[in-house]
């Protein structure tokens, strides 16, 4: 600990703390612009300067580490003059006429800083030169006129997302933010994660959708969980008048620490499907609006006679985007109470079969955590394209690469991570098993293994030379990759549903064995991460909702789609079903075929829990009030159960531990 004095108050802070952090710890506010808590301090804007006794010049508090006995003054006349001077220069640099800017009025950090310093004008002649506005991006606009060159966007793009699309061209007064080799932003390698817009302090980067829709001052913010995929990123839903304006990453969310991907930030807002606002019942061949009483009675009437029937009873399918509570009620109602043998989820277990197996073999409820990925020095990605799906997990990998983390990608098919990988292995489809054993054999031969292989005799047949014949990957490459993985300190294995021959469990056994061999399985934590599917696919798996969906022969189909979109394959299978009830938020080919449609809340309207890919349980919160006739998924299932005369148990937590009941759920 280091003790120092800030504004006459003595405090103790850990070594390596910056003066800015120390000041904030002791409740002293120092204005900043280029600094951002989640980015490496840059020391560029100079707004945060403070007076340090003994130092000739004012010091930037954001980059200055504390030292013993330091005496700091943050609000002397000299400091205030300096802040004003810095702001004066920034205002004179480009076009900062606030009245024409969409983020003025409380949203602009530059403007707010000026208000704090009681600035009403600036003495320097402003710069009248117009700068470009790059409006080529699908979601964002880059207006160089408002840019203060703080480089937060550049740092966020590199440090947080690992994408490095944004950069700074030229230098000095000519400096300008660019994308790639100075191409239009919309034509660049930008992945539209939008982290830049979230960190931009001014109106230089604005979001097309929410821009010019009023001030940030009168919005509501709701912390929730993104249900775009199984990563489970924390989000902040920004709403006004029951309208969703924007989605920000939640900086305090432990999973994603503020970053989001395009799906979570932008695409979630772009839902153009038609909303169902009242229950519908098919009469004379057409769906007609009905009361909830009529609709529920109709469904209950059709389902009740089918209770207990196997093969010719009810086939029930739930979306894995539904909250845990709904999945639990759904499972109870159809599997436990109505005794149907065909109760499953929309993923049909495809994405979770592997992880269930891994967890079982490891004797633990869930696999490795994403935290592990953030600190890995070697990532082996098998059958998963982290640039395409589960993108935020991909960002953790990409951003670690400049710090020396090695990446090995094993995927027979096109994979956007191939070009970033130190080794991009494309084995013949269906030869993953051989490749994994080849790697193990090479590790054992090189003497780098950290554990005794349990399958030593088997390995003998998988010399890299032999394996190269099967997989099409050269023996030298196999040896090199083996050396790379085995010599790293914190290797992490990420796999997805693309693992070929997924049906054969030995691939996974091999992967587990490989991980064990290189020390990636320690008693307290495993470094194997399966990416799984949608937001609640792990929960669906835990409730046993993971079998292939068969409609043929069943007399009724109940689909709890929520706001999910049915696949063409699913629609095909529904053809010819005698009775279809759909519990959904939007019109879709499935509702068109339905006999009864029960309107439910979409994701932003519901409260509920989600179990992410690493077994972390998180709560999503309602940010919007649903249309009047729309009910919650839980409410619909409960009402249906009541009509069927069935008692449902509400404690979903207990059963969530059932499938692998060894350790408690991480909460």
């Amino acid at each position, binding site marked *: 600990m280091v003790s120092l004095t800030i504004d006459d108050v003595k405090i103790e802070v850990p070594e390596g703390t910056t003066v800015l952090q120390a000041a904030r710890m002791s409740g002293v506010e120092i204005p900043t612009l280029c600094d951002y808590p989640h980015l490496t301090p840059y020391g560029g804007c100079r707004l945060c300067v403070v007076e340090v006794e003994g130092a000739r010049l004012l010091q930037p508090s954001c980059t200055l580490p504390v030292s013993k006995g330091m005496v700091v003054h943050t609000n002397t006349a000299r400091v205030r003059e300096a802040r004003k001077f810095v702001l004066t*220069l920034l205002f004179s640099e480009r076009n900062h006429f606030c009245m024409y800017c969409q983020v003025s009025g409380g949203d602009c950090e530059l403007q707010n800083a000026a208000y704090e310093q009681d600035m009403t004008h600036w003495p320097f002649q402003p710069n009248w030169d117009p700068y470009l506005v790059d409006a080529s991006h699908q979601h964002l606009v880059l207006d160089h006129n408002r840019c203060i060159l703080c480089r937060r966007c550049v740092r966020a793009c590199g440090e947080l997302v690992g994408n490095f699309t944004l950069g700074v061209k030229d230098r000095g*007064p000519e400096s300008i933010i660019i994308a790639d080799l100075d191409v239009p932003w919309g034509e660049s390698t930008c992945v539209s994660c939008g982290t830049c817009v979230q960190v931009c302090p001014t109106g230089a980067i604005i979001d097309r959708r929410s821009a010019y829709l009023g001030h940030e001052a009168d919005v509501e913010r709701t912390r929730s969980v993104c249900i775009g995929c199984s990563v489970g990123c924390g989000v902040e839903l920004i709403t006004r008048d029951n309208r969703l304006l924007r989605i920000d990453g939640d900086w305090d969310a432990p999973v994603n620490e503020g970053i989001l991907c395009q799906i979570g930030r932008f695409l979630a807002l772009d839902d153009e499907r038609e909303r169902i606002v009242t229950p519908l019942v098919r009469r004379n061949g057409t769906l007609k609006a009905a009361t909830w009483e009529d609709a529920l009675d109709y469904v209950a009437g059709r389902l009740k006679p089918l209770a207990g029937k196997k093969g010719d009873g009810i086939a029930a399918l739930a979306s894995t985007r539904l909250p845990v509570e709904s999945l639990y009620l759904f499972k109870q109602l159809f599997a436990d109470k109505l005794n149907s043998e065909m109760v499953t989820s929309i993923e049909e277990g495809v994405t979770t079969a592997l992880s269930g197996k891994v967890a079982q073999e490891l004797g633990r409820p869930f696999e490795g955590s994403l935290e592990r990925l953030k600190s890995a020095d070697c990532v082996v990605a098998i059958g998963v394209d982290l640039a395409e799906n589960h993108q935020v997990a991909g960002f953790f990998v990409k951003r670690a690469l400049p710090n020396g983390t090695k990446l090995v990608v094993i995927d027979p098919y096109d994979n956007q991570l191939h070009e970033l990988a130190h080794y991009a292995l494309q084995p013949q489809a269906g030869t993953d098993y051989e490749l994994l054993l080849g790697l193990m054999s090479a590790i054992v031969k090189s003497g780098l293994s950290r554990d005794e292989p349990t399958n030593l005799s088997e390995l003998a047949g998988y010399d890299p030379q032999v394996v190269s014949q099967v997989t099409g990957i050269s023996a030298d490459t196999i040896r090199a990759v083996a050396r790379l993985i085995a010599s790293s300190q914190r290797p992490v294995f990420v796999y997805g549903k693309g693992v070929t021959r997924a049906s054969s469990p030995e691939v996974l056994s091999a992967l587990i064995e490989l991980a064990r061999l290189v020390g990636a399985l320690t008693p307290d934590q495993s470094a194997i991460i399966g990416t799984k599917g949608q937001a609640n696919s792990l929960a669906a798996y835990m409730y046993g909702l993971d079998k292939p969906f068969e409609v043929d022969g069943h007399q009724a189909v109940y689909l709890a789609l929520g706001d999910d979109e049915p696949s063409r394959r699913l629609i095909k299978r529904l053809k010819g079903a005698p009775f279809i009830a759909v519990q959904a938020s939007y019109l879709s080919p499935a509702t068109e075929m339905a006999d009864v449609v029960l309107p439910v809340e979409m994701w932003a309207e519901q409260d509920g829990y989600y179990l992410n890919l690493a077994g972390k349980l998180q709560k999503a919160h309602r940010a919007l009030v649903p249309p009047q006739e729309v009910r919650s998924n839980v409410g619909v299932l409960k009402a249906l159960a009541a009509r069927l005369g069935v008692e449902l148990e509400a404690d979903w937590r207990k059963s969530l531990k059932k499938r692998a009941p060894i350790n408690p759920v991480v909460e």
Partner: protein
Amino acid sequence: MKFVRSLVLVSSDPDSLARGAQEVHERLQREIQSAGLQEEVAVVPVGDLGRHGAAPLIVVYPEATIYGPVTPDDVPLLVEEHLRKGRIAVGLRASARELSGRIAWLSARRGTLPAEQRIVLARAGLIDPEDIEDYILHDGYEALGKALTQMTPVDVINAIGKSGLRGRGGAGFPTGMKWRFVSQTDSYPKYVICNADESEPGTFKDRLILEGDPHSIVEAMTIAGYAVGASEGYIYVRGEYVLAQERLDKAIDQARQMGFLGEDIFGSGFNFDIHIHTGAGAYICGEETALIESIEGKRGEPRARPPYPTTHGLWGKPTVVNNVETLANVPPIVRNGASWFRRFGTSNSPGTKVYTILGNVNVTGLVEVPMGITLREVIAIYGKGMKDGATFKLAQTGGSSGSIVPSSLQDTPMDFDSFARAGVSLGSGALLICNEDTCVVDLVKVLLNFFRRESCGKCTPCRVGTERAHQILTSLSEGTAELSDLRDLETLVDGLSQLSHCGLGQTAAVPIRDIFKHFRAEVEAHVRLKICPTGACSMSGR
């Protein structure tokens, strides 16, 4: 170069001229001619020597004897006694009462020869820089041999420390202390970097050393490596210095062949090798942390300090960064000892300093003289006086440090401390001598254009401040400025010097501050009267 035996300065300010200085000067030249001394004695009219009561004054070097007031009739005696017989013409000396004030220090310099003392440039222009044998013939690699076979690393650091050698890049940090910091840091590997990114306007001393004596740098870096425990060195050579790069390349090759680089140098078990890294046109890379960023393949933006390169330098490892001229002092110090080095210069700034003399003087060039010489001496002795007999107005002492030294300070000894006391900076040693036709606004506008071009753009004060200052100076020179612009300019001076991240922005303010301090009336004339007193500014927007 013709090294004259005696140098005679004649004060020729308006006051002296009114009292007959012109006649004294002419008489002096005639007498010297008739005495046949014209090859040995140089007569130089200089500006104001101060002490108008005793004008016209004559100062004779090397004895620094001051005579005055001198009449034409005194001249024959003075020439006969002092210049022919070498005796001081006692009766003609200025009375002690007249020796107070600005020129009083002159007597303190009595006995100092107006000749050069070459330590770092000893071999430049003497040896074939592409021939290692020539270097060895002139004591080359002896210091390295001595260090490696007869001294411990601590001995070497102590020797450099005791010598009082201070960095010649501009800041004047004690070299021995820097080496000690690195040697005491317990993190490996360590690096030695030679900062050869010389880009100060008007400075080319390092180029001369690199082009004329490249082996001295190779030798010095190897000694530094031994002292601090580094086995790898980088020479960051300015991209524009193509010839220097070629010569260094050859020198390193030859040194490797003869075992002065590589493994087990001088049989001592010490290994060292040097890479050349070329810059690509960025003045800011002369700043040591920007230089390190540049070697690491990044934009040359200065890092936040602390931590300093001595603990977190290249690739985050302890690193010594020394300027070329600083390093060139190392082998002679190791060879001859610290006390030998202390014989030159002043006690706080021992050794010599290389100055480049440029601008409106008769002879431009580069000299290496002991620390503490004055501007007046440099102009008179080495510059051979002002060109076309013009009057000295100001000197600009090198880009980044950029002080503008008015003629009133030309008698301040040029060493780190005296200059600092006078509120000016010694800088890298460039002396741009300007005559009375130089407009300070025009000159500073050119300087600020340089700073805005070379600003890296990282910090607001420098990125915007240099631009705004240049804008205001331009409007001054065009006659379109208002009085409020002068206030803004002064605000910029304070902000730039107080808030900039690195030396570039901090010192960009210095020349502006200096002209406000020393030439305020001239600056204000551009606004109040809308005229340029020297006629240099076009005042097109008037």
